[in-house]
């Protein structure tokens, strides 16, 4: 493929991946499916009955891998067997995946809340009715975007993996990244806004999640509103970087042109890792200087 066209395809892949990452994180925020959900699960046991959607169908990577696989399989059947155009087929595939995900979400919240009946946690049917379509909408976006990434990689950039398998793999990676980045914004900040900004959660405050919203009782959509300002888009940037940079280094130095080019692409990848490392160190340095320590150094004062 012409280098310019492949760069254009890469840009499209990067954009689709960014949307996939952002919607994946927001889906897990509105439905509370992540490590941060441990607090939503714990709250009623500590006496804090809440109105937060509590699903956690599975770990995010596994759940997203399932969604993406279902969507891509549906799309591939429509393309190969029924002769649908790929774009139309990917939309229908993503719709099927969203419906499957919606059904899992409802059974998950029903099961989880029912098991907490002894802690007086009610099952709010209006909550299920209002949140499930939102969860499905984000699941649709994630599946569609991930399927677009996989489709373009297989059929335009000639990646050797089968389309559905690649979609499954990107599903695991997007879940892994969403769980590792954006969910921190929900777990460490949004759920515990009553504690001062600039602290990790004290273990003794576990389960004491905020239950009152800006208007009425807080629910998953309130959390979605907050996390869509920072955590969600940042997750998108992260997944976009993984997909884009991983493919970009192979386009800049194409290994098909020889072993030396292959090694150069690997070196370029390592340069990226080192640059991010320096950036990470710089943030560490500046935050230490600006935020300051939590405790005084009593040991050194005593010696002075």
């Amino acid at each position: 493929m012409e280098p310019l066209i492949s760069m254009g395809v890469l840009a499209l892949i990067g954009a689709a991946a960014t949307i996939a990452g952002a919607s994946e994180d927001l889906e897990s925020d509105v439905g509370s499916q992540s490590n941060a959900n441990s607090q939503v699960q714990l709250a009623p046991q500590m006496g804090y009955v809440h109105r937060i959607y509590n699903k956690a169908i599975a770990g995010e990577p596994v759940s997203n891998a399932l969604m993406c696989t279902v969507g891509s399989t549906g799309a591939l059947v429509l393309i190969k067997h029924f002769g649908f155009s790929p774009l139309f087929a990917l939309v229908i595939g993503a719709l099927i995946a969203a419906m499957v995900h919606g059904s899992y979400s409802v059974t998950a919240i029903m099961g989880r809340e029912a098991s907490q009946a002894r802690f007086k946690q009610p099952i709010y049917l209006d909550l299920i009715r209002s949140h499930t379509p939102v969860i499905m909408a984000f699941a649709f976006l994630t599946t569609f975007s991930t399927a677009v990434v996989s489709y373009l990689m297989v059929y335009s950039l000639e990646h050797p993996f089968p389309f559905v398998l690649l979609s499954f793999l990107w599903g695991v990676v997007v879940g892994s990244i969403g769980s590792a980045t954006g969910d921190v914004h929900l777990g460490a900040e949004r759920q515990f806004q009553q504690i001062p900004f600039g602290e990790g959660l004290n273990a003794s405050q576990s389960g004491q999640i905020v239950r009152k919203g800006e208007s009425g009782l807080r629910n998953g959509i309130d959390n979605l509103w907050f996390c869509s300002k920072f955590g969600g888009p940042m997750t998108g940037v992260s997944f976009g970087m993984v997909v884009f940079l991983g493919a970009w280094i192979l386009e800049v130095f194409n290994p098909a042109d020889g072993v030396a080019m292959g090694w150069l692409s690997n070196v370029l990848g390592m340069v990226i890792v080192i640059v991010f490392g320096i950036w990470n160190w710089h943030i560490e340095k500046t935050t230490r200087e600006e935020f300051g320590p939590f405790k005084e150094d009593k040991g050194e004062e005593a010696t002075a």
Partner: protein
Amino acid sequence: MIDIVGVIAPNLLWILAIVIGGTLISISVHFIPVGGAPAAMAQATGIGTGTVMLAAGAGIAGIIAAGAVMSRNQDFGVVVGAAAVGAAVMLAATMIVGTWIYAYGVGVMPVSAKVKYDPITKYRQDLYVSQGTEGHGIPTVTYVSSTIGGLMGGLGAGLAYYALMMVGTYPYAGVTPLEVENLNLVGVVASFVIGFFFINSVIPSYNIVGTIEGFHDPKFKRWPKAAVASFIASIPLAIVAVVAVGALALVGGL
């Protein structure tokens, strides 16, 4: 009937490569700073997700990179190197964005609770740990450890992928050898390597029990046990995989 001995005999070297790959994956998981659920609440240092999920996410990024390179260039070093770099880039992108969220979204600085001074930057750590937590964020030592882990895990996954592709494309007597682009071969090999990666990242998670910060964490010293266990577990896995992929090649890739 498939000639099992005929498949295994020419591929003994690749069986050894798969076993070494599995052992490398197992050791690599100890380097990756897994904060688990507590890290998602800025309650522990590291990346806020589970051991297996994070390691598998990185390993899979490596496998995707190895697959892309293998179809263009079959040089051993380039393919295995691409897998290592692919995994390291995935972890690097995750960690830098994680640091943004800890620093600007939660307002905490990266700090370790397992050591008093960062072994690399020599920054004081204990004063910067907020009350009731086991550290938060990704300090420099953790970033470096994670990069080593990503490279090593990707190397292991790349070794297993390359070895099985070589088993599948070996010119066995009386059959036309498969090509590296054969969809069935690539699908079977990639699926096996993913499963192999999951198995070898679950074994060390019994050592890690929830969280680990990297090579400076006291739990890191337990790695030899997991390495031995993974080495032993990888032997039957490698034999079964080589027989399965070899059989696929013998029947002409279906």
